[in-house]
């Protein structure tokens, strides 16, 4: 029962436990906030301004969403005048325009996801097969370029290309068609939106995939070759699984921004004629807020949109962790 007698026999079974139990009890872990502050106060002081930024410009607006439940008068208290409960939520759920813009959002979001998610992977795979380094670098440099342009410039370019005398109509008349005012036609808006989105984002999207491709183990290709796999099979069985974590991460992020479809671009490109296909939740919210000055109503729509976005990203994350084993956190 003395300390000298005991150790020998129970030592082996104890050691795994011993390794675990002292850790939480170590003095480091138990250090109090006062000690931490005294030791690291200079570090904490560096965090004050950024924290203030997050508090004021990120978290205060979250709380500011309270005006979705209260009557807000422009110029009045930023938290509104009095409670109206879920009135504004009921209002937009019964608003036929809301459901129209909600559908448009889903359609545009789905189309964007359908094209803007896989195409960078395809382009990265194609680039990966190029052996001439200079040519590869040239294609990459060119394809990144549109990413650096302002949305305004992209919108202006789209307008020029689709104008009556623009390139799109030059092609139309080449095939003997009559000029079309593309941006005035609701049936063309989705095509124009998605293709300009692809034009601007695809090259940039390849960067991460190209980085991921360089980390795929060469030995796996060797092994696949020995097993008789051709290039296509090597791509399917080695390359794609190799970049799967990157794919999943980007997919989750894309899903998270699913509802926030290019608000700024749509705002620049749409007009009352194309509302039937172009008007999305965020542009409707913008008009409600700033043209109709119905701030509480617009805030309710915004809150609804943000909550759905959060739910989407959380569930995408959970699903991918359960099925693929990759997640954002």
């Amino acid at each position, binding site marked *: 029962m003395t300390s000298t007698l005991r150790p020998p026999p129970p030592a082996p079974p104890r050691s795994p436990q011993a390794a675990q139990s002292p850790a939480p009890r170590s003095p480091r872990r138990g250090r109090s906030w006062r000690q931490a502050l005294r030791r690291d106060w200079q570090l904490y002081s560096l965090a004050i301004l950024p924290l203030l930024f*997050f508090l004021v410009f*990120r978290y205060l607006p979250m709380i500011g969403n309270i005006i979705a439940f209260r009557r807000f008068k422009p110029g009045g208290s930023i938290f509104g005048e009095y409670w109206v409960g879920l009135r504004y939520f009921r209002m937009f759920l019964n608003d036929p325009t809301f459901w129209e813009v909600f559908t448009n959002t889903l359609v545009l979001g789905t189309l964007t996801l359908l094209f803007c998610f896989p195409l960078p992977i395809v382009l990265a795979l194609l680039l990966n097969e190029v052996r001439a380094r200079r040519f590869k670098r040239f294609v990459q440099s060119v394809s990144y370029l549109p990413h650096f342009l302002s949305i305004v410039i992209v919108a202006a370019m789209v307008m020029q290309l689709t104008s009556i005398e623009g390139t799109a109509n*030059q092609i139309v008349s080449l095939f003997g068609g009559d000029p079309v005012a593309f941006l005035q036609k609701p049936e063309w808006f989705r095509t124009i939106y998605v293709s300009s989105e692809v034009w601007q984002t695809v090259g940039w999207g390849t960067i991460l995939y190209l980085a991921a491709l360089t980390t795929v183990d060469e030995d796996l290709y060797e092994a696949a070759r020995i097993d008789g796999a*051709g290039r296509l099979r090597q791509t399917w069985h080695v390359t794609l699984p190799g970049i799967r974590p990157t794919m999943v991460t980007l997919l989750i992020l894309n899903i998270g921004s699913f509802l926030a479809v290019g608000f700024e671009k749509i705002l620049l490109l749409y007009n009352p004629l194309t509302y039937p296909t172009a008007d999305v939740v965020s542009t409707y919210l913008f008009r409600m807020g700033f043209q109709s000055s119905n701030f509480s109503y617009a805030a309710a729509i915004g809150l609804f949109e943000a909550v759905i976005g959060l739910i989407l990203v959380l569930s995408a994350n959970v699903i991918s962790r359960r099925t693929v084993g990759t997640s954002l956190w």
Partner: protein
Amino acid sequence: MTLGTKVDAPKTRGPVDSRGYRIFRVVNTVVLLGVVVVTLYPFLNIVARSLSEEAYIIAGEVTVVPRGFDLTAYKLLMSDAMFWTNYRNTVVYTVVATLISIVLTTCYAYVLSKPQLKGRPFLIGVALFTMFFSGGLIPNYVLVTSLGMKNTIWAVVIPNAISVFNLLVMKAFFESLPSELEEAAAVDGLNTYGILLRIVLPLSKAIIATMVLFYAVSFWNSWFAAFLYMDRQDLLPVTVYLRNLIAGATSAESAAADADKVQAAATLQAVTIVLTTLPILAVYPFVQRFFVRGVMLGAVKG
């Protein structure tokens, strides 16, 4: 033919390429060249338009070569004082905003990169959560206006001062620095500020350059904040100048106006696009590599 293949063979890794793969490589090159053409065409088209005579544009004859070389629109825009005021605003906003952003991001990223810091998960969580949930347009607008930032530069530069993505990239970089250097400096009597300024920052020139570029481009390109918070034309950045130009030219009222005006608008738009894009295009070849490295850094560790 057979001889050629035999000579080429040792250059390729592994066994000789199959016939199918050789065909694929040809097709691949053609496809990638197609991507290049499609990407560059809009740029060339705009430049050609900006240098063309209006009559040719209206006739739909301008593709990538200027027709009836004409600099009138350039002269017209160059003589517009408001364009230059707005251009100068863009420069000022970009410089001030980038400076603020860099300072705030560097400070926070440095703090987050210290694994022994108590409360670090909380500090990271504060930033991360804002990536997935935001207050939304209306509460932000109400906040900024009630802070009295309307029609001031602050409405443009402060509310977007920290990008969480950039923060994570920078944090990853700081974490990759050898901690021994900082420990040695601490032993030599430097405090945290001294270590950051004299040891860490000089070692971080590459990442700071990347961050400057990331922020500068995003502020240079931004338009919505100014559009929302500024009523006075002399405060607008050039992106909003361009926005007003294209919004005006497409609305029905100006189409009904005299034909000359509409015709001039097409060239004028092209010129404005060219002049607004020019600075980006001018620095692009030099900074492109930085961007790529920055994004990859964030991807690997973030």
